[in-house]
């Protein structure tokens, strides 16, 4: 894996490998000294063309806990209005020899664009309505943590499916690992064609109740007002009444169903506070797992994986000789003793 651009092109083995690696990183954040030298001397650039607190912070913390040098660049406007094109920005950054560029952009496909001019590993941190792979990975890690396995689970995704990169990445990932997915939301935001998005099919429901029935996992999506140029529903009030997740919906789900939300939440609109703050909500677990997943992604992409980058660290060459994850994990443990 040279880049992480989307879940759709990953194999289930690659996904499991990423999740296993993330699991091994989870402990680091619970230690007193939350740092290992795995990416010492590597440079990670967080290039964010869209406002983001959670994802950008999560990537930054992940990079720093691996001892990489993290640089954050926030570009508030799109390239077109500001003169410099995305490719020129990328070429300029590439000239400073980063090992990894994490990009968030409002245009679907922008991360692919970067791969045309950059040698650095590119990580998609959300591109338009296309994909948000690290969100799906952290969601999967959270589900695995609480359910043991993803295979055979029923997952309901509620809200603005049309514009959601989170929904797409999650549908790909969960189905690759053997879960079944259903989606529900206003007809304007849940295209019928979603039923055939993947080979296994997606259950497309009109009513939230039908999607949630017997679900083991309920994912609620954020209503993204900024992405909507047309009026897709009459009012927030009506949305909350018909498509907001409330405790009575959860009674229809499996008895031990869990609730997730990628954040930031619009409380009282897509999710009621009782649920968000209730015992089934894993929203903060998701955030914690986000750091572990991003550490795993950066590690697997930016650490020496053989051919392309010259090794400057003893640990790296050693881990390469040991081969595979096991060797890498050993050096992580040793690093953690520092």
């Amino acid at each position, binding site marked *: 894996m040279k880049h992480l651009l989307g879940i759709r092109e990953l194999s289930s083995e690659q996904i499991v490998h990423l999740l296993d690696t993330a699991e091994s990183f989870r402990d680091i954040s619970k230690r007193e000294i939350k740092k290992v030298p795995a990416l010492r001397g590597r440079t990670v650039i967080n290039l964010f063309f869209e406002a983001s607190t959670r994802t950008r912070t999560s990537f930054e913390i992940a990079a720093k806990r691996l001892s990489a040098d993290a640089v954050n660049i926030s570009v508030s406007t799109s390239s077109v209005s500001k003169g410099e094109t995305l490719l020129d920005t990328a070429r300029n950054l590439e000239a400073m020899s980063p090992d990894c560029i994490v990009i968030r952009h409002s*245009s679907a496909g922008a991360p692919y664009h970067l*791969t045309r001019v950059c040698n650095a590993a590119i990580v998609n941190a959300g591109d338009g309505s296309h994909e948000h792979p690290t969100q799906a990975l952290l969601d999967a890690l959270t589900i695995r943590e609480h359910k043991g396995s993803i295979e055979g689970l029923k997952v309901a995704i509620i809200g603005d499916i049309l514009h959601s990169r989170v929904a797409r990445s999650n549908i790909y990932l969960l189905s690759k690992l053997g879960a079944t997915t259903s989606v529900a939301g206003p007809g304007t935001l849940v295209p019928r064609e979603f039923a055939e998005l993947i080979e296994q099919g997606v259950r497309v429901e009109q009513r939230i109740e039908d999607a949630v029935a017997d679900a083991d996992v309920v994912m609620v999506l954020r209503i993204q007002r900024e992405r909507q140029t047309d009026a897709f529903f009459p009012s927030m009030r009506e949305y909350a009444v018909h498509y907001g997740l409330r405790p009575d919906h959860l009674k229809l789900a499996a008895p031990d169903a869990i609730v997730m939300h990628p954040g930031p939440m619009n409380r009282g609109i897509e999710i009621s506070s009782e649920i968000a703050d209730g015992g089934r909500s894993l929203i903060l677990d998701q955030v914690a797992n986000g750091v572990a997943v991003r550490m795993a992604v950066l590690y697997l992409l930016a650490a020496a994986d053989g051919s392309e980058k010259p090794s400057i660290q003893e640990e790296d060459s050693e881990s390469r000789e040991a081969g595979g994850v096991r060797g890498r994990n050993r050096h992580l443990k040793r690093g953690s003793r520092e």
Partner: protein
Amino acid sequence: MRLLIRNGYVIDPAQGTNTGKSLFIEDGRVVGLMSHNDNVPENAEVVDATGLIVAPGFIDMHVHLREPGQEYKETIASGAAAAVAGGFTTVCAMPNTDPVNDNAAVTRFIIEQAERANLADVLPVGAVTKNSEGTELAEIGEMKNAGIVAVSDDGRPVPTAGMMRRAMEYARGFDLPIIDHCEDRSLARGGVMHEGHWSLVLGLRGMPAAAEEVDAIRDCALAELTGARVHLAHVSTRGAIEAVRRAKAKGLAVTCEVAPHHWTLTDEAVAGGENALPYDTNTKMSPPLRSPDHVAAILDGLRDGTVDAIATDHAPHHADEKALEFDQAPSGIIGLETSLGLAMDLVKQGVISLERLVELYATNPARVLKLEDRGTFRSGARADVTIIDPENAWTYDLTNSKSKSRNTPFAGRKMTGAAVATMVAGRIVFLHPDFSRLTASRANAARQTS
């Protein structure tokens, strides 16, 4: 000046000619067809077309030459050079230049620039409304006097049915067809590709097929109301093809064209392929590449006569513009030099015959635009000639392109069948580098087999 194009195979559907003949030209006009055995007329220069197809000059009803205003993308001279290299003797220049061709001064400028280039003949299409803004009629009569052959607000479709009705009625008075780019903007809502499976996968905003279809159906209804000549540009959807088929069955003056990329590629091309990254902006055009069902409908229309013409929608854009993010990049690809090669694929696949191909490129465009002395070898017609080698195998090499722009998804594509010589009013304006070698080797082969 006398010219004999000798020993070729002449296809002229307007006269029902499809046989080995020699074409005799004098002073830029067709004199007539002669038998191969007839003596070469006195003082005639001879072009040997053994093994080649000799067709009335091809007419591309729909190109964007970008001049005036965007000469960094294309000029009338560079566009005309690309046209003749692709076998076209006449091209119709769409009015969405800067300024828009909505008045006689711009129309005359385009014609003068084309005369200066002295390659393909460029026939301007005037705007329907002032600045193509869809609110006030442009001075269509003045432009007609200056030389336009049709009116269109291509690229900025006439937004309301009421405005379109007025435009049709007014244009009818000058016997000009209205060429409409069918796109209901309230449905297309800034979509950047075909709405369907692949737009969902790629997270790109989709334009539903219905955006084209409702406008096509509207235009057919208005053609019936007004009796105007209506030509639907670059039709890409099943619904639009079906609307034209119904309109023709009713006897309305409705015609349509299709573009080669719309039958060659599907919307899946936007998702990339084995050697192509996804989100390649050379797969972005308007109307967009469609799903296989729509492509099948286009092929049906080409087969059964519903489709009147093949037009390229040649739309040059600078590499810097096409290097933007997919949703920011402009729509369109160049097409003049690849059109015939892609149409020859259809002949090889048995979708259309060679005769039908000539009809789509020459006979019908001349009929739709009422260009009475073009699209045929009738005695007295302009001596516009496209000579085709149906077996010529070639690879589209962009470094040899005559266009100023490079925006195409077909770079490196292998094709069979090419224009090897193009003549405008009896003058050779393009000669394939292989032309003489080709004819010599074919003549030898013919001698050996006989």
